[in-house]
């Protein structure tokens, strides 16, 4: 070990390849690059539902997105870096959304604003609702809330900026858009009898064959909630977890930890059962 550890000077926490270790220039270029990128994120002018109203409210003068260099809402996907999925994504709408996403130039980011965009929200059970845009697009930041207030959205945008700050030019995984060849476009879903994700065609075909054989079609084997099964595990968990926890914690905390451990054990059991089911 040398006296001067240059790696300490690198502010990014991301892995730097061995041959570049200690190369300060890369990090500062990365910094400059990230700074310029994160300070001019142009969102796609694109509102879906209730959250769009809060998004516009954020862009208006009270919360003022332009303080972050984001006020330039572009109508064209070709000119935008950030797609704010602001509201419920329906099956009918996800087709144009994926198309728009494919048209955006790299580097591009997706933010799921609000509960609906993240995971379906209160409308999750609906027949025309996509339960989370991350089923179709890679999402960078999730902003919970229904709807998130402008300040919550701003917090999410700052979180996205932090994420960009963490990217390093030295790491190809961070900046895949400098790789060879164009990026693969996301396959566009098809509206058939129900929405069809082309990536799942094999699965659908398999299920259709099963249906021909008389099995129930398109109904997943439910992960049986193994409460009965979990019973013995609970005892085990108690036996193993309790003594080591109790040693150095106050009883309330220990109790809480114990319960948590139990819940986790049950969760694991359930997940295992679910995997078996698949």
């Amino acid at each position, binding site marked *: 070990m040398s006296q001067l550890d240059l790696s300490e000077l690198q502010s990014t926490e991301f892995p730097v390849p061995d041959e570049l270790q200690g190369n300060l220039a890369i990090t500062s270029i990365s910094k400059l690059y990230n700074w310029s990128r994160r300070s001019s994120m142009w969102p796609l002018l694109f509102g879906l539902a209730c959250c769009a109203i809060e998004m516009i409210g954020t862009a208006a003068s009270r*919360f003022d997105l332009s303080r972050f260099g984001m006020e330039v809402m572009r109508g064209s996907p070709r000119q935008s870096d950030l797609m704010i999925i602001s509201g419920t994504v329906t099956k009918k709408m996800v087709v144009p959304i994926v198309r728009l996403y494919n048209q955006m130039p790299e580097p591009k980011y997706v933010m799921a604003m609000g509960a609906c965009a993240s995971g379906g929200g209160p409308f999750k059970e609906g027949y025309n609702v996509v339960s989370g845009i991350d089923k179709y697009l890679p999402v960078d930041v999730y902003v919970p809330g229904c709807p998130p207030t402008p300040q919550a959205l701003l917090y999410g945008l700052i979180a996205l900026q932090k994420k960009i700050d963490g990217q390093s030019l030295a790491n190809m995984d961070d900046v895949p858009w400098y790789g060879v060849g164009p990026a693969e476009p996301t396959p566009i879903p098809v509206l058939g009898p129900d929405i069809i994700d082309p990536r799942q065609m094999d699965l659908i075909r398999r299920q259709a064959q099963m249906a021909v054989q008389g099995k129930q079609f398109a109904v997943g084997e439910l992960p049986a909630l193994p409460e009965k099964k979990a019973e013995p595990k609970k005892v085990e968990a108690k036996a193993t977890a309790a003594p080591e926890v109790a040693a150095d914690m106050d009883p309330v905390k220990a109790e809480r930890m114990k319960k948590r451990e139990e819940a986790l054990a049950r969760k694991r059991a359930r997940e295992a059962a679910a995997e078996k089911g698949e």
Partner: protein
Amino acid sequence: MYGQGIAKGLWITFKHLVNTYVDDIRYAGRKYVSQDNFQVRQGPKSQGAYTVQYPDEKIAVPERFRFVPFRVDSDYDDPERPGQDWCTSCGICAKVCPPQCIWIVRGQDPNTGRPVPQPEAFFIDIDICMNCGYCAEFCPFDAIKMDHDYELASYDRTSRHIYDKPKLSKELRYWKTIAPTRAVEEMEARGGWDHKDVQKEKAKAEKAAAAQKAAPAAPVQTNGGAASPAAPAAEAPAADDAEKIKAERLAKREAALARKRARDAEENGGA
């Protein structure tokens, strides 16, 4: 004259622009520093644009503001039940939840298998939660409240967006800080800072204590100061108490029945 309307409009926009800077001058550069200035700037008397410099100054949210719910625990240094759940796992919040995002596992006594008034596990899927506030509104034990912390953005939802019991639990003192007025109102309705059940227990204990206090006092009065054996004296008031309670209960029952009859009559009359 053509163009007059446009010119007028342009003048107004210009005035707006100037107004915002006049504000700056009025506050002599202290627009973003002083608390009072913030209040005026965000209030109905403000002029021009009133931007909030978000990460550097945030609008504190009003008391009734609702975001994701949290569960109330007793303070960790509470003398009666430190760090314990207020939730009795009655399930009302799960029932009134419109999108059904609350999941509760009712606690069970490991020996008897009977339900105990404490949840074994408690989950809220914040990707479903619609922040409507029903859970807090209808909880009979004030055990679930709406949080004011909206800064929840995350990079990954699969692992982080189902809140479990440890993540949801916050101390009572937190609720007292974020909603002082309402906390006091609720305390008054409940009758004290403690949990409803603790209140009840306390009341019971007090009653018992009062009865015990009354016990030695009563015979002293009736017997006119004559020394009497302790055992029967203690028994007699107890029996008295039992009778009294019985009579009270009967009276209550009568009253309730009368009320019910009246109601029925009214209903029949209405129909």
